[in-house]
């Protein structure tokens, strides 16, 4: 294994350009698993840990900026994240255990592109913007366009995630919900993971709604059919049932080593139902 250590951003981008096959190393909680199994034998590693600026979390006039190297612990306890983007704080709280939260980063979580990434439903409903940087320049990628498939991103050669921009919605949602359903209370991979935002009009009709589920498709899914079906409707049982019948158009869970398709489908449905019924 070859280790490249970048002192600063410029050097990191230069090195990455020269060694595009290198694997960036942030907290290492995903990479080290591969290292342990020998998958990284002979690979080149680009260590980002000295890019201190990239670990910052900053409140901005529009929302919050979270550097790619910010750890889940830093995110979970950050006052602005907690008050303005509580679902992200809650999801960071459910990642691995405390040790993993202290070490793992948001950038690493995204770049790893697991179908079960637990921050993704929150990032999806907050419509996060991913800022990337390479020797050639900077890009802003909507979160909905960052994944290309299982364990695949749309990052280009030599491109790193620099940070995540979260914009505070113009009106505050009247309901926010997050729930992870894993294999146990900690150190658990999700069977299904949910985040939802809801805005209601004065007449109790749905002004806007954003729902997302993870672990039930190749990557996180916004539930577009359900969202569309509910927008403008009163949240009565009929509307909810009608919307939920569209669930199988939005997600495609499978049987695997951790759970079953049926369970994932049923529980995802239950999670949405209890969110819509505020239970």
């Amino acid at each position: 294994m070859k280790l490249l250590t970048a002192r600063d951003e410029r050097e990191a981008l230069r090195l990455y350009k020269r060694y595009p096959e290198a694997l960036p190393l942030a907290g290492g909680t995903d990479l080290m698993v591969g290292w342990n199994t020998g998958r990284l034998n002979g690979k080149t590693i680009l260590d980002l840990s000295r890019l201190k600026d990239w670990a910052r979390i900053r409140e901005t006039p529009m929302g919050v900026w979270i550097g790619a190297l910010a750890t889940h612990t830093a995110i979970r306890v950050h006052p602005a994240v907690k008050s303005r983007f509580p679902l992200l704080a809650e999801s960071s709280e459910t990642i691995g255990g405390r040790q993993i939260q202290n070490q793992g980063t948001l950038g690493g979580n995204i770049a790893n592109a697991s179908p079960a990434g637990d921050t993704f439903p929150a990032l999806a409903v907050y419509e996060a913007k991913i800022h990337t940087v390479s020797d050639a320049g900077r890009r802003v990628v909507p979160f909905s366009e960052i994944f290309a498939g299982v364990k695949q991103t749309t990052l280009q050669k030599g491109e790193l995630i620099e940070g995540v921009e979260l914009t505070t919605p113009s009106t505050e949602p009247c309901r926010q919900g997050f729930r992870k359903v894993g294999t146990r209370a900690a150190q658990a991979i999700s069977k299904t993971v949910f985040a939802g935002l809801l805005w209601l009009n004065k007449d109790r009709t749905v002004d806007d709604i954003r729902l997302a589920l993870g672990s039930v498709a190749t990557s996180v899914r916004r539930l577009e059919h359900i969202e569309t079906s509910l927008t403008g409707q009163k949240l009565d049982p009929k509307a909810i049932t009608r919307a939920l019948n569209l669930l199988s158009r939005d997600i495609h869970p499978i049987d695997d080593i951790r759970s079953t398709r049926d369970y994932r489908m049923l529980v995802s449905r239950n999670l949405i139902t209890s969110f819509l019924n505020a239970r």
Partner: protein
Amino acid sequence: MPTVGHDRLRKEGPQKLTGTALYVDDIPVKGIWHGVTVRSSVAHAKIKGIRFLKGFPWRQAVVVTAKDIPGENCVHLIEDDQPLLADGITRHALEPVALIAHPDRATAYNALNFVEINYEPLPSVLDFEKSKKILKTFSIKKGDAKKAMKKAWKKVDTTFRVPHQEQAYIENNGMMAWFEPDGTLVLQGSLQCPYYIVKAMKPIFKLPEEKIRVIQAVTGGGFGGKEEYPNIISGHAALLAKKAKRPIKMIYDRHEDMSATTKRHPAVIKHKAGIDKKGRLVALDIDIVMDAGAYVTLSPVVLSRGILHASGPYECPNVNIHASIVQTNTPPNGAYRGFGAPQTLFAAELQWEKLADASKIDAVKLRERNLVKIGSELSTGQILKESVGLKKCVDTVLKRSRFTALRRDHDKWNKKKTSPTWRGVGFASVHHGSGFTGNGEVFLKSKASVTLTKSGRFVIETASSEIGQGSMSTLCQIVSDALGVPYEWVELEANDTSRVPDSGPTVASRTCMIVGGLLYRAAKQLKAAIEEKAKKIPTTPAVLKEVAKKLAGKKSVFRITTEYEKPADIEFDDTTYKGDAYGSYGYAAIAVDLEVDRTTYEIKLNKIWTAQDIGKAINPLIVEGQIIGGTTQALGWAVFEKPIYKNGVMQNAEFTNYIIPTALDTPPMDVVIIEEPYSRGPFGAKGVGEMPMDIPAPAVCAAIKQATGLFFPEIPVTPEMIAAGIARKG
């Protein structure tokens, strides 16, 4: 100041806490090479050839196959049916076929990518319920179960199933081997039973016992998983050491350890029970089948303990039990905490729920009418003469958990439409025979010594292994109190067969009760010898040294060795399975409180109450640790642990997907130790290690039944099963 009954600093605690304890992979050995194992990838096949492919620097490595074995190609245990290296045929996937050693560990592993085995497939049996190859059977008959069942007021018939379970010790299997210039084979590693290894190496290397030395390294847990398996890894490391003419180290990684080494035997138990109008158990008709895997290993002994516990801690005049163990083409199963009893007790206990449904009498009330007490007769005809604390355990748990009231509260909660969960509390009670089954101890003839060195140190000599259970401290406490000296004055000799006598294997909670008993006697004799020279036991090191010099005379130590003596009034017939199966039994009761989420069907374990009669807690903190740890392990078996097999290969052989409980999954536990002393145990002690593993699973299923109305005669009960069950109910 007596130490028995008090918490004392763990003898090995400080080293473990500060990271200075050396586990086998930490021990530096100059010039050592790393050994890896080539394993078969199919369940049953003729091996047509092994090819070592181009592209790997084979000249730097040493390769061993079956033909390099100097003696017999077998892993000596009960039957010698298991080859050390598969020769011409593989009977399970992941069977060792060849060994490779290289100076560099990563390179050694890489070599595995350059080995190709050609197979000619043979028909395989992977599902033990379909296997017709019976390796061993046992039967127990008492009274006339058939007739009694016919006459019973209510009868139930349930088929119970329990799965494999992985020991999941914190340290994987690992062993080092080398040959001394005089030809002595030395093995050092992670292990429970050093003398088992000595005996296993003899036929392989055609060496006399004196030329085989086994040393226990600090061991990170065993739970039975390092009882017999180290025989295999020892043989492998030694074969490589012989051929490479240098020390060899073999350390399994987690994946290899989980997929290739032994697990708890899965079992299916067809259990029929009948009660009379008074709720008394009048008939039991039980059929047990366990899965041995591809070879016999310790399966007959596991099956034996299984059948001996199958009727539970209850009186029943008419019992008919048949037990068999069958062969499959899967990796062999072996020892695991509880050793067959958790399997059969699961059925015995959970069946009360069915009897309760049938009779409309509460399951706990039914049990209370049948609990064994002094004078009761077990299924083998054994009469319990002393030390039966079962009722005390039951009463304690019922009272501390407010069991009846809690059940009522839960029923109310479950009726409310707005409750986010369903709640349930379940109960179970068990017995567990302490020490070896039947005449095991008689055959073993264990020895243990206490010595006084010339420099005035008391040293315990046993081959009993500290594997995290606290045996070092427990044995030192027994000896220091028997001698009447401070705890700090007593030490343990290294667990090295060249220095300690064969005190038998570290299994079945026999270390404290049996080996502790031998040491107690030795210490008492040593005390008498000291008092003969010095009137009373010295209270200062200086005086002790004086006495020690006198006692030792020309030798460097004064040693007292005791040997196991069979108590005259304990008789067991191995052929008819009649008589005193165990010298004594421990007893336990438990209540498990849990809730099931109505949205996700996840089970949350809220609280455990348990009371366990262990005779005497030599060190209460250690005992509590055993109970909490064992309970957690059993809770994992009940709700999480599900080895998934495909073509006889475990698919989830890693902690990401083989789910064991984390600290956050472990509920608070209210542990009460009950002490009904056993006259032959040191200070009254009997076994503690296994009951915590025996008892939780049926109580969990009973609690889930109250919560959801669903009866699962199988484990683990997963959210997926509950979801499907609720969907079925509509």
